[in-house]
């Protein structure tokens, strides 16, 4: 028996040209972007930069025309891995391009697609995800936010939490209960597109432990959402969310979040000979190369239209472990303290990643949830 089937993927010819285009673009646009800023990876929000990516046609590039340019998933992969390896600030468009857009393409109405996809693809309209609630973290099916029928729409009441960049986004795609009660679990859930400028919405940023205000609490007090903003079918929200999560578990973002610290760590040993550093950096490189090929293999399967859910989950589990290993190895090799205010590039990068990386195994499904998903794939549950 073979638990998983991941085959090495050969990149299609011609991607080198695209890769070089992205590199030149990054050099021109972000040539002076500081190293510690780059360490923030896909957490850094820059609406202007997202707009420029949109202008280049690099957002939603796999989407069919007229919204995208029908490029392959592997071409999109190349663009994304280049952005992340550089440490470009991609947070503004990230969720919309990675999750909301594909969700709307698959389940959204023609009208929703016409209205919303051009904004995502041009890097001007930003989305966030409304899943977690104060009492519903890993147990997502226990959400309480509900929508009641009201003529030609819904009235939403409740609260979402840990909503990344809600304060800067235009829309939230929220998972809400449209019928039944919490006891009905997966039944009776639906996805609604909510314009975050609508009346009745209060967005309060929550400072994280690094001092940044990335995630938010979003309260809904009798917020009206028209019927036209229901995604897919009423009551099918759980299935749609599961499909949506598969878009986010195997990309290069799942192992490159700490890559800029790895780069700064390697730089520290320039022209020095240190056996321990050589061994440690060699090991990290082997992990990086392997994860990238695993992730590419999943991208190739996704391209065929299949859903390699378990394989994608494996990559997130391994990828996060790798990302979290980097600051540990850095600490082990170099006798300096992380310093976010006045440190060297290395010290600042370490300071950010050391603290941020604890969230890597929480966002997008905790390690514990992922391992349970894998165990189910192995037929153990």
């Amino acid at each position, binding site marked *: 028996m*073979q638990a998983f089937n991941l085959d090495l993927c050969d990149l299609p010819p011609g991607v080198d040209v695209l890769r070089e285009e992205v590199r030149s673009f990054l050099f021109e646009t972000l040539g002076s972007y500081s190293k510690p800023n780059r360490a923030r990876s896909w957490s850094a929000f820059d609406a202007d930069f997202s707009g420029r990516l949109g202008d280049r046609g690099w957002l939603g590039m796999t989407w069919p025309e007229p919204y995208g340019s029908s490029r392959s998933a592997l071409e999109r992969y190349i663009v994304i891995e280049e952005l992340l390896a550089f440490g470009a600030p991609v947070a503004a468009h990230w969720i919309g391009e990675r999750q909301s857009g594909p969700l709307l393409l698959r389940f959204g109405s023609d009208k929703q697609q016409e209205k919303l996809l051009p904004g995502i693809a041009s890097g001007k309209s930003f989305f966030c995800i409304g899943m977690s609630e104060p009492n519903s973290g890993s147990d997502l099916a226990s959400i309480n936010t509900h929508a009641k029928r009201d003529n030609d729409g819904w009235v939403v009441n409740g609260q979402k939490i840990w909503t990344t960049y809600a304060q800067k986004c235009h829309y939230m795609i929220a998972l809400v209960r449209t019928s039944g009660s919490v006891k009905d679990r997966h039944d009776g859930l639906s996805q609604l597109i909510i314009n975050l400028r609508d009346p009745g919405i209060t967005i309060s940023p929550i400072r994280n432990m690094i001092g940044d205000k990335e995630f938010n609490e979003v309260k809904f007090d009798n917020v009206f959402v028209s019927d036209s903003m229901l995604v897919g079918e009423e009551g099918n929200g759980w299935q749609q969310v599961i499909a949506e999560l598969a878009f986010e578990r195997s990309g290069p973002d799942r192992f490159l979040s700490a890559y800029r610290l790895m780069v700064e760590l390697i730089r520290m040993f320039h022209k020095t000979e240190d056996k321990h550093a050589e061994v440690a950096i060699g090991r990290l490189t082997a992990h990086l190369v392997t994860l990238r090929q695993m992730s590419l293999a999943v991208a190739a399967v996704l391209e065929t239209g299949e859903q390699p859910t378990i*394989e994608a989950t494996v990559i997130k*589990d391994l990828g996060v472990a790798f990302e979290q290993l980097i600051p540990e190895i850095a600490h082990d090799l170099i006798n300096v303290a992380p310093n976010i205010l006045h440190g060297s590039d290395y010290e600042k990068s370490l300071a950010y990643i050391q603290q941020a990386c604890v969230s890597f195994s929480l966002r997008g499904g905790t390690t514990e949830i992922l391992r349970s998903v894998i165990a189910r794939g192995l037929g153990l549950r």
Partner: protein
Amino acid sequence: MTEISKTLAETCDRLFSNLINNDVLRETELAVWPDPIWQQIEENGLTFAMVNENHGGSGIKWIDCFQIIYWSGYYSVPVPLVETMVSSWFLSQHNQAPPKGVITFFCDGKPLDLIESNNSYKISGIIERIPWGASADYVLAEAYNSNKQVYVLLDAKKSKIVKDKNISGESRDSMTFDKASPMTVIDISDAFRSNSLLVYAALARSVQMSGGISAILDNCISYSREREQFGQPIAKFQAIQHQLAILAAEAAAAKIASQIACRAADLIDVSSGLEFEVATAKIRAGESAGLAASIGHQVHGAIGFTDEYSLHYITRRLWSWRSEYGSESYWARRMGKEVIAGGADNLWADITARL
């Protein structure tokens, strides 16, 4: 997966599962050469799978032969199939028709010295930890001709053997040659200038390990579904499920890492060599091997620690193989040196240019 890969996978899975069982593994550990098994493997053409067609082989690529090596690791095949495959391929790549029979290799110690006298070569010296040296017909060995590195093919029967084993009971013998005449002296071809036999030996062990790790995973899955404690199969316990999830992820990583190196081995004209990819494979598979062995034993409990139960045939091999032809830290140091020398800002470009 290519059609060839699929066929090889099915063939080897079936062949090895028919040939290998606990009794066979136990007997071979007592230094009984399982000749019928070797004959069957040879008759199926596996030893010559990678040999060029003009030398009577099948000319199958590394990425497809991955399946043979992987399944030989999966079933703990207790004969030097992999050593013979690699040696035969290496000879064939150097325009030497490989002989039939068992060929083992030597590439991880001080090379032998080739002495020239009266227009003929003689070799004297000792080589150690040679896989199945006592059962081999030939040994392909690294040697020096003055200051030039060469390979020699020696008649194994002309050596004095002292038997030894690795901890999995696989034969690792020392062979002493006294003024032996090499059958062939091979100058290294340009394509192999930066890839010594050690690189391919390490690659082969990585692939074997990835097979062994998958075997542990499969054993653990079926055992944990059968074994009941506290009134239910232990597979129902989250603690066990998470251990097996980790193991499954490691198995997938080891497999992909060794495939990366096989793919690179098919492109041996790359001037930079394939050390980078082989290091990746040996490091990653070696790390997974250690983890897989400990999870495997933990999940199996006391029965896995018995001689009677089959788990140890795999785990002891994994502990042996991860040390042979360069441990993780040996390859990591080689790789890390290159990465640091290449410069922090060039690493990404280097990785994407290679693969």
